[in-house]
């Protein structure tokens, strides 16, 4: 990375008696998956540019337990949740932002019942907020006139009814946004949800990510935009499967904005 990223750590803020405006929940994918790490860095670049006072938990963060819950292991989920809630509550965290819709859904909807109530935002919602309040200005015309199609992540869209924030943010890049036939409420899943990311698909005629990639390719896009590290992996694989890597790139909205 050429640019130096400023990533404050919660424990240091706490020691210095500072309460950051927002906690960036990096998530397991954002911390360990090579593709998703780039999204985390892009998002931090935005946070730095907009002078957002934030922090991460760093080594004190652990998996939300979301994937375990979707796989049916409620026990493991609750163990993870209770441990994370202890850390979050000890730091008095009020506001959380994350690039992972699965963490977003889990923290926002499933943690309150176990004693962890926070205001939780998906990064596209937070970026939308930064742009609207004038804290973040999109000046470059990097994507002006480019054909971009947005793939709704299930856990942001159908699961939490957020369809506008990512589209608002995309609109600010002056790109030409083209909707897929299946979009918003009827958007097709990328195939990774419900712990499918971690297993081979069941027997079938084709893989879900390939079908969804076909949906996206119908719009003849330069870029397929996503807001989820898992969707990103699935669609990137789909593009490879269709041998379209040269023409179409799969980018997270944070990456698009970080480059604008």
């Amino acid at each position, binding site marked *: 990375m050429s640019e130096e990223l400023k990533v404050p750590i919660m424990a240091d803020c706490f020691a210095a008696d500072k309460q950051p405006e927002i906690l960036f929940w990096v998530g397991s994918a954002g911390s360990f998956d090579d593709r998703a790490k780039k999204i985390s860095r892009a998002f931090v670049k935005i946070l730095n540019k907009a002078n957002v006072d934030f922090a991460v938990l760093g080594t004190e963060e652990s998996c939300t337990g979301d*994937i375990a819950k979707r796989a049916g292991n409620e026990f493991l989920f609750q163990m993870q949740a209770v441990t994370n809630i202890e850390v979050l509550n000890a730091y008095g965290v009020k506001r959380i932002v994350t690039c992972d819709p699965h963490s977003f859904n889990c923290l926002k909807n499933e943690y309150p019942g176990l004693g962890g109530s926070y205001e939780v935002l998906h990064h596209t919602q937070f970026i939308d907020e930064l742009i609207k309040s004038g804290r973040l200005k999109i000046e470059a015309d990097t994507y002006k006139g480019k054909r971009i199609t947005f793939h709704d992540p299930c856990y942001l869209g159908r699961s939490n009814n957020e369809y506008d924030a990512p589209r608002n943010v995309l609109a600010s890049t002056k790109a030409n946004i083209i909707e897929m036939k299946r979009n918003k409420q009827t958007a097709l899943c990328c195939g990774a949800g*419900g712990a499918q990311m971690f297993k081979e698909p069941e027997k079938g005629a084709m893989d879900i990510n390939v079908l969804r990639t076909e949906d996206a390719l119908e719009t003849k896009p330069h870029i397929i935009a996503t807001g989820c590290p898992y969707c990103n992996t699935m669609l990137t694989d789909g593009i490879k499967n269709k041998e379209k890597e040269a023409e179409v790139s799969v980018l997270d909205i944070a990456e698009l904005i970080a480059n604008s």
Partner: protein
Amino acid sequence: MQYIPNILFLLLLVGGVGYFTMNIRKLIRNINLGLDVDRKDQKNIRFKNMAKIALGQTKMVRRPIAGFLHIIVYVGFLIINIEVLEIIIDGLFGTHRIFAPLGKAYNVLIGSFEILALLVLVAIIAFWIRRNVIKIKRFFSAEMTGWPKSDGNNILYFEIVLMLLFLTMNAADYKLQLLEAAHYVKAGAFPVSSWMIAPFIDGLSESALIVIERSAWWLHIAGILVFLNYLYFSKHLHILLAFPNTYFAKLTPNGQFTNSEAVTKEVKLMMDPDADPYATPDPVAETEEVAKFGASDVMDLNWIQLMNAYTCTECGRCTSECPANLTGKKLSPRKIMMDTRDRLEEVGKNIDANNGEFKDDGKQLLGDYITTEELWACTTCNACVETCPVSIDPLSIINEMRRYLVMEESAAPTELNNMMSNIENNGAPWPYNQMDRLNWVNE
């Protein structure tokens, strides 16, 4: 002797309504076999949802053609049923067109019933064509053979016959009014039957017309009562259950899965530093039944999920949007609901046959109806939940059954077991050290 028709009518009515009531009580008993879940909160929002989704059909019109046709049939049936009230009063008291003194208003009423009846006929024929000629794909999945397939057509035939009987009865009445036959008061307007049916009975004698009018009248009301009793055995039950089902539907975000309370109890105990692992077990707690994690049979599901199963009208919108099903996997959310209903019916019959007690029949929902292959194909994407026109939640059943597989049977696919042991050991689904969680910053 002159009261024989009245008595016959009363018997028919009591028989029809009585048998229906008996089956509805059975239905309620079966639904109550499910676990309790509190859905008495936020009554305003619940009423609004019911008004919008069930009464207002807002989700039906997301598919404009089917939605429009369905609204015609729905409105038609709702309004034509006012006529049933008159038929019942006439039948019981031996009157004829008791509401006729309403005069002009009566003409408008009967006239609009006729127009609606025609529209219903047209819509139903369109439905029949969609099912049998165009063969719309979602009506032809693996689970749509046998009874479910004929059920779909039976309903259409029933409705065609009922509408034709209604119009025939009116046409004969109209002719009799023209002939100034005794008892046939001049009342009503017949904008449809007068040209659609009347020409077929032109020139018939008064007595022949009376036979036709009376037969159509009796067959029509008898048909309605038979149809009413058909509901319990059919997907058509949705005309009643759509209302409670949309009222009691989940109000929290689609993505929010329940936190199992039984698990919370265990987790709290494990995390409690004061808990004594060698303590003598609490005798009260010991006698309590050990909670079962997840669901392997219908009794482990909650009553909302069981009501969902009876409400399902097998339209297949869920399955047609399911990413697993679209890519050829075995999972079909509609089948999950149909299986749940079939098993619940089986359990209900078992209870009836064994004096109110369920006798273990060596069967369960998991395995005998729903296979693990179906359960593990789900991406939990909520497409089925979002699209259901009557707010059914197949995903919640899938998740409960996964919970049973994982927590009671340790029967998750191997790759998922690896993922879960990674989370357990290092707080991430991959085998990376938690101490490396910040390395991304400097890479």
